[in-house]
Protein backbone atom coordinates (compact mmCIF):
# COMPACT_ATOMS: atom_id res chain seq x y z
CA UNK A 1 0.00 0.00 0.00
CA UNK A 2 2.91 2.27 0.61
CA UNK A 3 4.19 1.43 -2.84
CA UNK A 4 0.99 2.54 -4.51
CA UNK A 5 2.04 6.15 -5.08
CA UNK A 6 5.24 4.97 -6.66
CA UNK A 7 3.36 3.11 -9.33
CA UNK A 8 0.69 5.66 -9.99
CA UNK A 9 1.18 7.60 -13.23
CA UNK A 10 -0.53 10.72 -11.90
CA UNK A 11 1.84 10.90 -8.99
CA UNK A 12 4.73 10.60 -11.38
CA UNK A 13 3.34 13.43 -13.47
CA UNK A 14 3.07 15.63 -10.41
CA UNK A 15 6.58 14.91 -9.23
CA UNK A 16 7.98 15.61 -12.67
CA UNK A 17 6.04 18.84 -12.93
CA UNK A 18 7.29 19.83 -9.49
CA UNK A 19 10.89 19.21 -10.46
CA UNK A 20 10.50 21.03 -13.75
CA UNK A 21 9.05 24.03 -11.92
CA UNK A 22 12.00 23.98 -9.53
CA UNK A 23 14.38 23.98 -12.49
CA UNK A 24 12.60 27.05 -13.83
CA UNK A 25 12.77 28.87 -10.50
CA UNK A 26 16.47 28.08 -10.27
CA UNK A 27 17.03 29.47 -13.75
CA UNK A 28 15.36 32.72 -12.75
CA UNK A 29 17.48 32.72 -9.60
CA UNK A 30 20.56 32.50 -11.83
CA UNK A 31 19.48 35.66 -13.64
CA UNK A 32 18.94 37.42 -10.33
CA UNK A 33 22.20 36.72 -8.62
CA UNK A 34 25.75 37.75 -9.28
CA UNK A 35 28.14 35.22 -7.76
CA UNK A 36 29.89 32.94 -10.17
CA UNK A 37 30.29 30.10 -7.70
CA UNK A 38 26.57 30.22 -6.96
CA UNK A 39 25.91 30.05 -10.68
CA UNK A 40 28.01 26.91 -10.96
CA UNK A 41 26.21 25.30 -8.03
CA UNK A 42 22.78 26.18 -9.34
CA UNK A 43 23.79 24.64 -12.65
CA UNK A 44 24.77 21.48 -10.81
CA UNK A 45 21.46 21.34 -8.96
CA UNK A 46 19.52 21.94 -12.16
CA UNK A 47 21.36 19.15 -13.92
CA UNK A 48 20.68 16.89 -10.95
CA UNK A 49 16.96 17.66 -11.15
CA UNK A 50 17.03 16.93 -14.87
CA UNK A 51 18.71 13.59 -14.27
CA UNK A 52 16.03 12.82 -11.68
CA UNK A 53 13.29 13.77 -14.12
CA UNK A 54 14.83 11.42 -16.67
CA UNK A 55 15.03 8.65 -14.10
CA UNK A 56 11.42 9.18 -13.05
CA UNK A 57 10.28 8.95 -16.65
CA UNK A 58 12.32 5.81 -17.10
CA UNK A 59 10.63 4.33 -14.04
CA UNK A 60 7.08 5.16 -15.01
CA UNK A 61 7.40 4.31 -18.67
CA UNK A 62 9.51 1.19 -18.27
CA UNK A 63 12.18 2.54 -20.60
CA UNK A 64 15.52 1.38 -19.25
CA UNK A 65 17.68 3.13 -21.82
CA UNK A 66 16.76 6.46 -20.32
CA UNK A 67 18.39 5.39 -17.05
CA UNK A 68 21.69 5.39 -18.89
CA UNK A 69 21.12 8.92 -20.17
CA UNK A 70 20.20 10.00 -16.64
CA UNK A 71 23.30 8.39 -15.16
CA UNK A 72 25.52 9.99 -17.80
CA UNK A 73 23.99 13.39 -17.16
CA UNK A 74 24.63 12.89 -13.49
CA UNK A 75 28.27 12.06 -14.00
CA UNK A 76 29.06 14.70 -16.59
CA UNK A 77 26.92 17.67 -15.69
CA UNK A 78 26.45 17.30 -11.97
CA UNK A 79 29.92 16.12 -10.99
CA UNK A 80 32.58 16.61 -13.63
CA UNK A 81 31.72 19.97 -15.17
CA UNK A 82 30.97 21.81 -11.89
CA UNK A 83 34.15 20.49 -10.31
CA UNK A 84 36.09 21.60 -13.36
CA UNK A 85 34.66 25.08 -13.22
CA UNK A 86 34.97 25.50 -9.49
CA UNK A 87 38.63 24.64 -9.74
CA UNK A 88 38.95 27.18 -12.53
CA UNK A 89 37.30 29.87 -10.42
CA UNK A 90 39.62 29.15 -7.53
CA UNK A 91 42.65 29.38 -9.77
CA UNK A 92 41.50 32.59 -11.36
CA UNK A 93 40.23 34.10 -8.14
CA UNK A 94 37.27 35.88 -9.63
CA UNK A 95 34.11 35.60 -7.59
CA UNK A 96 31.61 38.17 -8.71
CA UNK A 97 29.97 39.15 -11.93
CA UNK A 98 30.28 42.75 -12.98
CA UNK A 99 27.23 44.80 -13.75
CA UNK A 100 25.23 43.15 -16.51
CA UNK A 101 24.21 45.11 -19.57
CA UNK A 102 20.54 45.16 -18.58
CA UNK A 103 20.13 45.67 -14.86
CA UNK A 104 19.06 42.79 -12.70
CA UNK A 105 15.41 43.59 -11.91
CA UNK A 106 14.66 44.23 -15.56
CA UNK A 107 16.45 41.06 -16.65
CA UNK A 108 14.45 39.05 -14.14
CA UNK A 109 11.24 40.44 -15.57
CA UNK A 110 12.47 39.74 -19.09
CA UNK A 111 13.21 36.16 -18.07
CA UNK A 112 9.62 35.92 -16.88
CA UNK A 113 8.51 37.15 -20.28
CA UNK A 114 10.72 34.60 -22.02
CA UNK A 115 9.15 31.88 -19.90
CA UNK A 116 5.76 32.91 -21.19
CA UNK A 117 7.13 32.81 -24.70
CA UNK A 118 8.35 29.30 -24.00
CA UNK A 119 4.86 28.30 -22.96
CA UNK A 120 3.37 29.76 -26.09
CA UNK A 121 5.82 27.89 -28.31
CA UNK A 122 5.28 24.66 -26.39
CA UNK A 123 1.53 24.94 -26.86
CA UNK A 124 1.95 24.41 -30.58
CA UNK A 125 3.61 21.09 -29.91
CA UNK A 126 1.00 19.80 -27.57
CA UNK A 127 -1.18 17.15 -29.04
CA UNK A 128 -3.52 15.65 -26.45
CA UNK A 129 -3.59 12.23 -28.01
CA UNK A 130 0.12 11.77 -27.95
CA UNK A 131 2.01 9.96 -25.26
CA UNK A 132 4.52 12.19 -23.62
CA UNK A 133 4.69 14.37 -20.62
CA UNK A 134 2.34 17.13 -21.56
CA UNK A 135 3.44 20.59 -22.39
CA UNK A 136 4.68 21.73 -18.99
CA UNK A 137 8.09 20.17 -19.30
CA UNK A 138 8.55 21.23 -22.91
CA UNK A 139 7.62 24.79 -21.93
CA UNK A 140 10.19 24.74 -19.14
CA UNK A 141 12.75 23.33 -21.57
CA UNK A 142 12.17 26.06 -24.14
CA UNK A 143 12.20 28.70 -21.40
CA UNK A 144 15.54 27.35 -20.19
CA UNK A 145 16.83 27.62 -23.74
CA UNK A 146 15.61 31.19 -24.18
CA UNK A 147 16.73 32.41 -20.77
CA UNK A 148 20.16 30.82 -21.29
CA UNK A 149 20.42 32.63 -24.61
CA UNK A 150 19.44 35.90 -22.97
CA UNK A 151 21.96 35.40 -20.15
CA UNK A 152 24.68 34.86 -22.73
CA UNK A 153 23.97 38.20 -24.33
CA UNK A 154 23.45 40.03 -21.07
CA UNK A 155 26.43 38.98 -19.00
CA UNK A 156 29.98 39.96 -19.56
CA UNK A 157 32.11 37.50 -17.70
CA UNK A 158 33.41 34.78 -19.96
CA UNK A 159 32.74 31.96 -17.50
CA UNK A 160 29.13 33.06 -17.08
CA UNK A 161 28.68 32.89 -20.85
CA UNK A 162 30.02 29.36 -20.86
CA UNK A 163 27.63 28.36 -18.08
CA UNK A 164 24.76 29.93 -20.00
CA UNK A 165 25.75 27.89 -23.05
CA UNK A 166 25.67 24.75 -20.93
CA UNK A 167 22.25 25.60 -19.56
CA UNK A 168 21.12 25.91 -23.19
CA UNK A 169 22.16 22.28 -23.57
CA UNK A 170 20.26 21.45 -20.40
CA UNK A 171 17.14 22.93 -21.91
CA UNK A 172 17.64 20.80 -25.00
CA UNK A 173 18.08 17.68 -22.88
CA UNK A 174 14.80 18.36 -21.12
CA UNK A 175 13.11 19.07 -24.45
CA UNK A 176 14.44 15.79 -25.83
CA UNK A 177 13.08 13.89 -22.86
CA UNK A 178 9.70 15.54 -22.91
CA UNK A 179 9.16 15.26 -26.66
CA UNK A 180 10.54 11.87 -27.47
CA UNK A 181 11.77 10.25 -24.26
CA UNK A 182 15.31 11.08 -25.20
CA UNK A 183 17.21 10.45 -28.38
CA UNK A 184 18.93 7.22 -29.31
CA UNK A 185 21.51 6.31 -26.78
CA UNK A 186 24.53 6.74 -28.97
CA UNK A 187 23.40 10.22 -29.85
CA UNK A 188 23.03 11.08 -26.18
CA UNK A 189 26.49 9.67 -25.59
CA UNK A 190 27.94 11.75 -28.37
CA UNK A 191 26.22 14.88 -27.16
CA UNK A 192 27.32 14.45 -23.57
CA UNK A 193 30.86 13.77 -24.66
CA UNK A 194 30.77 16.92 -26.72
CA UNK A 195 29.42 18.87 -23.77
CA UNK A 196 32.26 17.66 -21.60
CA UNK A 197 34.91 18.47 -24.17
CA UNK A 198 33.30 21.84 -24.89
CA UNK A 199 33.36 22.65 -21.18
CA UNK A 200 37.05 21.78 -21.04
CA UNK A 201 37.91 23.71 -24.17
CA UNK A 202 35.98 26.77 -23.08
CA UNK A 203 37.46 26.51 -19.62
CA UNK A 204 40.94 26.59 -21.09
CA UNK A 205 40.03 29.58 -23.22
CA UNK A 206 38.56 31.42 -20.25
CA UNK A 207 41.73 30.79 -18.30
CA UNK A 208 43.86 32.13 -21.09
CA UNK A 209 41.67 35.16 -21.51
CA UNK A 210 42.03 35.85 -17.83
CA UNK A 211 45.78 35.53 -18.09
CA UNK A 212 46.04 37.86 -21.06
CA UNK A 213 43.50 40.46 -20.16
CA UNK A 214 43.71 40.31 -16.35
CA UNK A 215 39.96 40.08 -16.39
CA UNK A 216 37.19 37.88 -17.69
CA UNK A 217 35.24 40.80 -19.02
CA UNK A 218 34.50 39.91 -22.62
CA UNK A 219 33.63 43.47 -23.53
CA UNK A 220 37.39 44.03 -23.42
CA UNK A 221 37.69 41.74 -26.43
CA UNK A 222 37.26 44.39 -29.05
CA UNK A 223 40.53 44.73 -30.91
CA UNK A 224 39.34 42.96 -34.03
CA UNK A 225 36.98 45.18 -35.95
CA UNK A 226 35.73 45.55 -39.50
Amino acid at each position, binding site marked *: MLMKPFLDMQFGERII*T*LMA*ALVLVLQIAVV*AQRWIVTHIRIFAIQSFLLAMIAATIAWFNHAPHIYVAAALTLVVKVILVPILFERLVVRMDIREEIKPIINVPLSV*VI*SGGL*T*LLGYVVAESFYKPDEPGLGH*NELAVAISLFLIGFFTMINRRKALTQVLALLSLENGLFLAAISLTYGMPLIVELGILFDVLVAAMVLGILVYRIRESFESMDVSLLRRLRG
Partner: protein
Amino acid sequence: MTERILESVSQLLLLLALAPLVTGVIRTLKARLQTRRGPGILQPYRDLLKLFRKGMVIPETASWIFSAAPWIVFFSTILAGLMIPMVAADAPLGLFGGALAVIYLLGLGRFFLALSGLDTGGSFGGLGSSREMTISALAEPAMMLAIFTVAIGAGSTGLTEIAGAAIGQTWRFLAPAQMFAFAALAVVLIAETGRIPVDNPATHLELTMIHEAMILEYSGPYLALVEWAASIKQLVLMTLLINCFWPVGLQPTWFGFGALIGIVWLLAKLLLLSCAIVLLETVNAKMRLFRVPELLAVAFTLGSLALVSTFLF
Protein backbone atom coordinates in the same frame (compact mmCIF):
# COMPACT_ATOMS: atom_id res chain seq x y z
CA MET B 1 -24.30 37.05 16.06
CA THR B 2 -23.04 36.32 19.54
CA GLU B 3 -20.96 33.56 18.09
CA ARG B 4 -19.34 36.08 15.83
CA ILE B 5 -18.54 38.39 18.71
CA LEU B 6 -17.15 35.56 20.77
CA GLU B 7 -15.03 34.38 17.85
CA SER B 8 -13.75 37.86 17.24
CA VAL B 9 -12.82 38.35 20.87
CA SER B 10 -11.08 34.97 21.02
CA GLN B 11 -9.08 35.66 17.89
CA LEU B 12 -8.28 39.14 19.16
CA LEU B 13 -6.94 37.79 22.41
CA LEU B 14 -4.97 35.16 20.56
CA LEU B 15 -3.42 37.80 18.29
CA LEU B 16 -2.50 40.10 21.13
CA ALA B 17 -1.05 37.34 23.22
CA LEU B 18 0.71 35.38 20.53
CA ALA B 19 2.42 38.19 18.63
CA PRO B 20 5.11 39.07 21.19
CA LEU B 21 5.67 35.37 21.78
CA VAL B 22 6.48 34.81 18.13
CA THR B 23 8.92 37.72 18.18
CA GLY B 24 10.52 36.35 21.31
CA VAL B 25 10.82 32.86 19.87
CA ILE B 26 12.47 34.15 16.71
CA ARG B 27 14.96 36.22 18.68
CA THR B 28 15.82 33.40 21.02
CA LEU B 29 16.19 30.85 18.26
CA LYS B 30 18.46 33.21 16.39
CA ALA B 31 20.56 33.76 19.48
CA ARG B 32 20.82 30.04 20.13
CA LEU B 33 21.85 29.42 16.55
CA GLN B 34 24.62 31.95 17.05
CA THR B 35 25.64 30.16 20.29
CA ARG B 36 24.40 32.97 22.48
CA ARG B 37 21.81 32.50 25.20
CA GLY B 38 19.37 35.14 24.01
CA PRO B 39 17.03 37.31 26.03
CA GLY B 40 14.45 34.62 26.68
CA ILE B 41 11.13 33.90 25.01
CA LEU B 42 9.09 36.14 27.28
CA GLN B 43 11.31 39.19 26.93
CA PRO B 44 9.03 41.05 24.48
CA TYR B 45 6.24 40.89 27.06
CA ARG B 46 8.52 42.40 29.65
CA ASP B 47 9.58 45.08 27.18
CA LEU B 48 5.98 45.99 26.41
CA LEU B 49 5.10 46.22 30.09
CA LYS B 50 8.12 48.37 30.76
CA LEU B 51 7.31 50.71 27.89
CA PHE B 52 3.69 51.11 28.95
CA ARG B 53 4.83 52.30 32.34
CA LYS B 54 7.40 54.78 31.08
CA GLY B 55 6.88 58.43 30.41
CA MET B 56 6.61 59.83 26.91
CA VAL B 57 8.59 62.52 25.14
CA ILE B 58 6.92 64.11 22.14
CA PRO B 59 8.90 66.47 19.88
CA GLU B 60 7.64 70.00 19.66
CA THR B 61 7.61 69.96 15.92
CA ALA B 62 5.26 66.98 15.79
CA SER B 63 1.66 67.39 14.68
CA TRP B 64 -1.47 65.35 15.43
CA ILE B 65 -0.26 62.65 13.03
CA PHE B 66 2.52 61.78 15.38
CA SER B 67 0.08 61.08 18.19
CA ALA B 68 -2.57 59.45 16.03
CA ALA B 69 -0.32 57.15 14.04
CA PRO B 70 0.40 54.55 16.73
CA TRP B 71 -3.32 54.08 17.36
CA ILE B 72 -4.15 53.89 13.67
CA VAL B 73 -1.38 51.37 13.05
CA PHE B 74 -2.36 49.28 16.02
CA PHE B 75 -6.04 49.09 15.26
CA SER B 76 -5.68 48.59 11.54
CA THR B 77 -3.31 45.72 12.10
CA ILE B 78 -5.67 44.11 14.60
CA LEU B 79 -8.57 44.54 12.24
CA ALA B 80 -6.56 42.87 9.49
CA GLY B 81 -5.72 40.11 11.88
CA LEU B 82 -9.35 39.44 12.55
CA MET B 83 -9.97 38.84 8.89
CA ILE B 84 -7.58 35.97 8.45
CA PRO B 85 -8.22 32.35 9.30
CA MET B 86 -6.01 31.46 12.24
CA VAL B 87 -7.54 28.58 14.09
CA ALA B 88 -10.75 28.14 12.21
CA ALA B 89 -11.17 28.25 8.48
CA ASP B 90 -13.90 30.77 9.06
CA ALA B 91 -12.29 34.14 9.86
CA PRO B 92 -14.29 36.15 12.40
CA LEU B 93 -14.63 39.26 10.32
CA GLY B 94 -14.31 37.39 7.07
CA LEU B 95 -17.66 38.76 5.89
CA PHE B 96 -16.32 42.26 6.00
CA GLY B 97 -13.35 41.73 3.81
CA GLY B 98 -11.05 39.22 2.25
CA ALA B 99 -7.52 39.26 1.00
CA LEU B 100 -7.72 42.71 -0.51
CA ALA B 101 -9.03 44.22 2.69
CA VAL B 102 -6.15 42.71 4.63
CA ILE B 103 -3.64 44.13 2.19
CA TYR B 104 -5.24 47.56 2.31
CA LEU B 105 -5.45 47.66 6.08
CA LEU B 106 -1.80 46.75 6.41
CA GLY B 107 -1.03 49.35 3.79
CA LEU B 108 -2.99 51.95 5.75
CA GLY B 109 -0.94 51.25 8.82
CA ARG B 110 2.27 51.52 6.89
CA PHE B 111 1.17 54.77 5.29
CA PHE B 112 0.54 56.43 8.63
CA LEU B 113 3.74 55.11 10.08
CA ALA B 114 5.66 56.59 7.16
CA LEU B 115 3.87 59.91 7.64
CA SER B 116 4.78 59.96 11.30
CA GLY B 117 8.39 59.33 10.42
CA LEU B 118 8.29 62.44 8.24
CA ASP B 119 6.25 64.36 10.75
CA THR B 120 8.94 65.22 13.25
CA GLY B 121 11.20 66.77 10.64
CA GLY B 122 14.20 64.74 11.68
CA SER B 123 16.39 63.29 8.95
CA PHE B 124 16.34 59.71 10.18
CA GLY B 125 12.59 59.60 10.06
CA GLY B 126 12.47 60.82 6.48
CA LEU B 127 15.16 58.36 5.52
CA GLY B 128 13.27 55.46 7.01
CA SER B 129 9.99 56.51 5.46
CA SER B 130 11.36 56.82 1.96
CA ARG B 131 13.13 53.48 2.18
CA GLU B 132 10.05 51.79 3.56
CA MET B 133 7.92 53.17 0.79
CA THR B 134 10.38 52.07 -1.89
CA ILE B 135 10.34 48.55 -0.61
CA SER B 136 6.61 48.37 -0.21
CA ALA B 137 6.06 49.82 -3.70
CA LEU B 138 7.84 46.79 -5.08
CA ALA B 139 6.60 44.24 -2.61
CA GLU B 140 2.90 44.99 -2.83
CA PRO B 141 2.42 44.05 -6.49
CA ALA B 142 4.19 40.77 -5.84
CA MET B 143 1.98 40.08 -2.86
CA MET B 144 -1.14 40.91 -4.78
CA LEU B 145 -0.20 38.69 -7.70
CA ALA B 146 0.48 35.80 -5.37
CA ILE B 147 -2.81 36.32 -3.54
CA PHE B 148 -4.70 36.55 -6.79
CA THR B 149 -3.17 33.27 -7.91
CA VAL B 150 -4.45 31.56 -4.83
CA ALA B 151 -7.75 33.36 -5.14
CA ILE B 152 -8.25 32.18 -8.70
CA GLY B 153 -7.65 28.66 -7.54
CA ALA B 154 -10.30 29.07 -4.89
CA GLY B 155 -12.70 31.12 -6.97
CA SER B 156 -12.92 34.04 -4.55
CA THR B 157 -10.74 36.55 -2.75
CA GLY B 158 -12.31 35.71 0.54
CA LEU B 159 -9.69 34.16 2.76
CA THR B 160 -12.19 31.75 4.22
CA GLU B 161 -12.88 30.33 0.79
CA ILE B 162 -9.19 30.22 -0.06
CA ALA B 163 -8.37 28.28 3.06
CA GLY B 164 -11.39 26.06 2.49
CA ALA B 165 -10.30 25.25 -1.06
CA ALA B 166 -6.81 24.45 0.10
CA ILE B 167 -8.10 22.04 2.73
CA GLY B 168 -9.85 19.97 0.11
CA GLN B 169 -6.85 18.90 -1.96
CA THR B 170 -3.63 17.80 -0.35
CA TRP B 171 -1.47 17.47 -3.42
CA ARG B 172 -2.57 20.80 -4.75
CA PHE B 173 0.37 22.40 -3.09
CA LEU B 174 2.64 20.65 -5.49
CA ALA B 175 1.17 22.43 -8.48
CA PRO B 176 3.71 24.86 -9.89
CA ALA B 177 1.34 27.80 -9.66
CA GLN B 178 0.98 27.28 -5.94
CA MET B 179 4.71 26.83 -5.50
CA PHE B 180 5.52 30.02 -7.34
CA ALA B 181 2.92 31.91 -5.35
CA PHE B 182 4.30 30.50 -2.13
CA ALA B 183 7.82 31.53 -3.07
CA ALA B 184 6.67 35.01 -4.01
CA LEU B 185 4.73 35.43 -0.77
CA ALA B 186 7.67 34.17 1.26
CA VAL B 187 9.93 36.82 -0.22
CA VAL B 188 7.26 39.46 0.40
CA LEU B 189 6.95 38.25 3.99
CA ILE B 190 10.62 38.93 4.52
CA ALA B 191 10.32 42.36 2.96
CA GLU B 192 7.17 43.46 4.77
CA THR B 193 8.21 42.31 8.22
CA GLY B 194 11.59 43.93 7.81
CA ARG B 195 13.81 40.90 8.35
CA ILE B 196 17.26 40.18 7.03
CA PRO B 197 18.11 40.19 4.11
CA VAL B 198 15.90 43.23 3.52
CA ASP B 199 16.14 45.09 6.81
CA ASN B 200 17.83 44.35 10.10
CA PRO B 201 15.32 44.60 12.97
CA ALA B 202 18.06 44.82 15.57
CA THR B 203 20.12 47.66 14.19
CA HIS B 204 20.17 51.37 14.85
CA LEU B 205 22.85 52.34 12.40
CA GLU B 206 21.69 55.03 10.04
CA LEU B 207 23.02 53.23 7.03
CA THR B 208 21.05 50.13 7.67
CA MET B 209 17.77 50.90 9.39
CA ILE B 210 14.45 51.07 7.67
CA HIS B 211 11.64 50.28 10.04
CA GLU B 212 13.58 51.35 13.08
CA ALA B 213 14.31 54.72 11.51
CA MET B 214 10.63 55.53 11.11
CA ILE B 215 9.83 54.88 14.78
CA LEU B 216 13.00 56.37 16.17
CA GLU B 217 11.23 59.33 17.79
CA TYR B 218 8.63 57.26 19.61
CA SER B 219 8.90 56.48 23.31
CA GLY B 220 6.83 55.11 26.13
CA PRO B 221 3.31 53.78 25.42
CA TYR B 222 3.34 54.97 21.82
CA LEU B 223 6.48 52.98 21.21
CA ALA B 224 4.85 50.00 22.89
CA LEU B 225 1.85 50.29 20.59
CA VAL B 226 3.99 50.57 17.48
CA GLU B 227 6.20 47.64 18.41
CA TRP B 228 3.21 45.52 19.33
CA ALA B 229 1.58 46.41 16.03
CA ALA B 230 4.76 45.38 14.22
CA SER B 231 4.80 41.97 15.83
CA ILE B 232 1.07 41.53 15.21
CA LYS B 233 1.67 42.37 11.52
CA GLN B 234 4.41 39.78 11.45
CA LEU B 235 2.06 37.21 12.95
CA VAL B 236 -0.68 38.12 10.50
CA LEU B 237 1.55 37.72 7.46
CA MET B 238 3.04 34.47 8.73
CA THR B 239 -0.39 33.05 9.40
CA LEU B 240 -1.56 34.15 5.98
CA LEU B 241 1.34 32.38 4.35
CA ILE B 242 0.81 29.19 6.32
CA ASN B 243 -2.92 28.91 6.12
CA CYS B 244 -3.32 29.74 2.47
CA PHE B 245 -0.98 27.03 1.35
CA TRP B 246 -0.87 24.44 4.03
CA PRO B 247 -4.07 24.64 6.02
CA VAL B 248 -3.53 21.40 7.86
CA GLY B 249 -5.27 21.54 11.20
CA LEU B 250 -7.71 24.33 10.44
CA GLN B 251 -10.92 23.63 12.27
CA PRO B 252 -14.42 24.37 10.99
CA THR B 253 -15.29 26.65 13.92
CA TRP B 254 -13.77 28.26 16.93
CA PHE B 255 -15.67 26.30 19.47
CA GLY B 256 -15.36 22.99 21.07
CA PHE B 257 -12.43 20.77 21.68
CA GLY B 258 -11.35 21.31 18.09
CA ALA B 259 -10.27 24.83 18.90
CA LEU B 260 -7.50 23.59 21.15
CA ILE B 261 -6.27 21.22 18.44
CA GLY B 262 -6.42 24.13 16.01
CA ILE B 263 -4.32 26.29 18.31
CA VAL B 264 -1.76 23.54 18.75
CA TRP B 265 -1.47 23.07 14.97
CA LEU B 266 -1.14 26.83 14.52
CA LEU B 267 1.63 26.99 17.08
CA ALA B 268 3.42 24.10 15.48
CA LYS B 269 3.27 25.61 12.01
CA LEU B 270 4.36 29.01 13.32
CA LEU B 271 7.30 27.38 15.01
CA LEU B 272 8.30 25.72 11.77
CA LEU B 273 8.07 28.97 9.84
CA SER B 274 10.01 30.79 12.58
CA CYS B 275 12.79 28.25 12.27
CA ALA B 276 12.90 28.84 8.53
CA ILE B 277 13.03 32.61 9.03
CA VAL B 278 15.78 32.28 11.62
CA LEU B 279 17.80 30.06 9.31
CA LEU B 280 17.39 32.53 6.49
CA GLU B 281 18.45 35.42 8.70
CA THR B 282 21.49 33.67 10.03
CA VAL B 283 22.75 32.44 6.72
CA ASN B 284 22.32 35.70 4.83
CA ALA B 285 23.71 39.15 5.29
CA LYS B 286 21.60 42.23 4.92
CA MET B 287 21.39 43.38 1.33
CA ARG B 288 22.37 46.87 0.34
CA LEU B 289 19.33 48.97 -0.29
CA PHE B 290 19.71 49.25 -4.03
CA ARG B 291 19.97 45.47 -4.31
CA VAL B 292 16.60 44.98 -2.65
CA PRO B 293 14.71 45.77 -5.88
CA GLU B 294 16.47 42.79 -7.45
CA LEU B 295 15.11 40.45 -4.82
CA LEU B 296 11.67 41.95 -5.13
CA ALA B 297 11.83 41.74 -8.92
CA VAL B 298 12.32 38.00 -8.49
CA ALA B 299 9.27 37.91 -6.24
CA PHE B 300 7.30 39.90 -8.79
CA THR B 301 8.30 37.62 -11.63
CA LEU B 302 7.45 34.56 -9.60
CA GLY B 303 4.11 36.08 -8.73
CA SER B 304 3.26 36.84 -12.34
CA LEU B 305 4.44 33.41 -13.45
CA ALA B 306 2.23 31.92 -10.76
CA LEU B 307 -0.74 33.89 -11.96
CA VAL B 308 -0.23 33.05 -15.60
CA SER B 309 0.46 29.41 -14.96
CA THR B 310 -2.96 28.94 -13.40
CA PHE B 311 -4.25 29.46 -16.91
CA LEU B 312 -1.65 27.43 -18.66
CA PHE B 313 -1.41 24.33 -16.58
